């Protein structure tokens, strides 16, 4: 019976990590449902972007208040997690505060003291975050797509963080030995006063309970990630690495179209020629995207990375003037549909079974797609380098090239370009008339 806590701990840790691994595998499987694109160029620049944007939070601080609060929570999260190492060793081996055995008391004190200060800062920042969402009601947290799960998810994350920080402090405050060292209990010494007068046994029970709840909470939170917008804490790193490096204004070239255009313009190519021997007959490419499988894996990674902060939507000229388009909703819809497709595959022994649904129309309406001015404000605003515009463009491509479903005025415009080389019905021969007018 002596080893019961250790065994329980090992089992909890194993289940937590195993389930998390399973989720990560599913995540990777889903992202890989996207079209394969190779992103192997300019590695040094990619690393730099990741260091600056994800690790360095360079785009977060564009909005100073949210940016500073976020940096506190982010730093706190990373640094306090060093403490998890000690907790895991203690839990598995049965030691208590193993750090004290390997580190001089004052070094250990400095570490724990830092964690305690950060814990309080995180606690306060998280409360401010909660107030911004629920009391101040910042508009971008109350757009139409931010109801039910997205709204609750955001608050659950904040509650999780508050509880974890509180448990960490309580665990230290009720640890009689730790308090008697009087080193590193920079915050918990005051909390310890609230518990003064309680018998040592009771304190021990509270300390153990807080310790267990804290580590179990961490494991649960780890597994909550996959279901939550909070995935950004992991995916912001690969996402900023794989982000677009070309100027924002450049839309990608569709190679499949280039091949056809070249064929149309080259008099020497026989369009009816059979493919060279040994090559498989070419499958006609689908132009643009009507569902998540038509998007690239980078775009799907974008969707999982989105933490629904809404900076994109708050900068979007269409959204600001009351149109239905919200770049954040484009990302949320893409993720929701991808999840649906993933579950479909899980339920059908690894093969996607046609479900009569798609990203277009079932999730993203045409009205939203046609409201975009391609101004790149959403791309510029995203703190983790997500590109909602690329999804909007790929879906427009599908509408126009596969469905011929552009708005009538745009069809007129395109007919004009085809016939007279200008979006208006003017004669190309008159292009230089202005010089004599």
């Amino acid at each position, binding site marked *: 019976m002596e080893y019961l806590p250790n065994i329980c701990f090992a089992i909890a840790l194993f289940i937590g990590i195993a389930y998390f691994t399973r989720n990560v595998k599913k995540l990777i499987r889903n992202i890989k449902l996207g079209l394969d694109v190779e992103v192997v160029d300019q590695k040094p620049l990619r690393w730099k972007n990741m260091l600056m944007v994800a690790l360095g939070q360079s785009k977060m601080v564009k909005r100073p208040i949210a940016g500073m609060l976020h940096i506190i929570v982010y730093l706190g999260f990373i640094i306090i997690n060093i403490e998890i190492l000690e907790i895991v060793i203690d839990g598995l081996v049965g030691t208590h505060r193993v750090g004290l055995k390997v580190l001089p008391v004052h070094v250990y004190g400095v570490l724990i003291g830092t964690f305690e200060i950060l814990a309080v800062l995180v606690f306060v920042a998280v409360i401010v975050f909660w107030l911004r969402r629920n009391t101040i009601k910042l508009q971008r947290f109350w757009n139409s797509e931010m109801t039910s799960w997205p709204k609750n998810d955001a608050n659950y994350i904040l509650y999780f963080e508050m509880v974890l920080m509180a448990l960490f402090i309580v665990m230290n405050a009720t640890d009689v030995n730790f308090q008697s060292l009087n080193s590193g209990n920079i915050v918990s010494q005051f909390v310890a006063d609230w518990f003064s007068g309680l018998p040592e046994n009771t304190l021990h029970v509270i300390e153990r309970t807080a310790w267990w709840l804290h580590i179990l909470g961490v494991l649960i939170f780890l597994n909550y990630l996959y279901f939550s917008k909070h995935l950004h804490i992991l995916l912001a790193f690969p996402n900023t690495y794989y982000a677009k490096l*070309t*100027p*924002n*204004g*450049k*839309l990608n*070239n*569709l190679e499949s*179209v*280039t091949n056809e*255009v*070249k064929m149309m*313009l080259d008099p020497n190519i026989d369009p009816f020629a059979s493919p060279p021997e040994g090559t498989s007959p070419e499958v006609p490419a689908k*132009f*643009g995207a009507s569902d998540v499988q038509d998007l690239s894996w980078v775009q799907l990674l974008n969707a999982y990375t989105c933490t629904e902060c809404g900076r994109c939507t708050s900068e979007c*000229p*269409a959204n*600001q*003037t*009351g*149109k*239905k*388009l919200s770049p954040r909703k484009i990302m949320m819809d893409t993720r929701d549909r991808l999840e649906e497709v993933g579950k479909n595959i899980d339920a059908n022994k690894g093969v996607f079974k046609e479900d009569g649904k798609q990203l277009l129309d079932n999730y993203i309406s045409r*009205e939203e797609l*046609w*409201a975009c*001015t*391609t*101004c*790149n*404000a959403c791309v*510029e605003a995203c703190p983790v380098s997500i590109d909602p515009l690329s999804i909007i*463009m790929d*879906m*427009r*491509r*599908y*509408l*126009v*090239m596969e469905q011929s479903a*552009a*708005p009538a*005025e*745009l069809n007129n*415009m*395109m007919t004009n*370009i*085809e016939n007279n*080389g*200008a*979006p208006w019905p*003017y004669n*190309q021969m*008159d*292009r*230089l008339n*202005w*010089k*004599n*007018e």
Partner: protein
Amino acid sequence: MSEELKVPTMAEYVAQGKQPEVLFWVGCAGSFDDRAKKITKAFVKLLHKAKVEFAVLGAEESCTGDPAKRTGNEFLFQMQAVTNIELLNSYQIKSIVTACPHCFNTIKNEYPDLGGNYEVMHHTQFLKSLLDEGRLTIDGGKFKGKRITFHDPCYLGRANKVYEAPRELIEKLEAELVEMKRCRQNGLCCGAGGAQMFKEPEKGDKDVNVERTEEALNTNTEIIAAGCPFCNTMMTDGVKAKEKEGEVEVLDIAELISNAQDL
């Protein structure tokens, strides 16, 4: 008005066995839109003043394909692009200047994938370089001391990170450059991009150009400076919608410099 401007075409240059220093890509708006034609002429006058040997394609020029691409019609875009690139390459064009940020962005960023590689400049960048080389002088003239705000075109600013050239030119007019709250990388779109110019907006509670014009008017500006023929149209319409056309003018940077010197 029937003043004859000297505007040589590439065909004429080639006939003389010469190569211009730069090709002026006029663009559809600059060729056909009555308002934008004034910008084209103002820019040509500046080119003459700086003694720039330039040429246009004239009737050989065709839409870059930008509105088609942004509508989603990659076929039409690439047909336009490939045809234009063939023409440009046959004339051995090396550098291109244009007063339209959409043409600028498309030729600069989207033509290389299809075999068109040129040095492409927006006219504000080109004018700035003429100024730096001492080939062009800018005088404030009637704009001296006026309040001018600059509306960043999305396809010049966010799309290509050109923020300073137009502003430096405005400052050379000895005018007071006032910034809107949303400027440079945070600049608000005029509402025309992504082929919106050619269609009615989706249902909403306001037009984008009105929102942007209100922001410009909030600076108490006397002139809204633009660097894009489409922004120019949208902002002009916005000023009309706010019934301020008597007080506030919308002018392209090229027009500002040219008008200041009564060219």
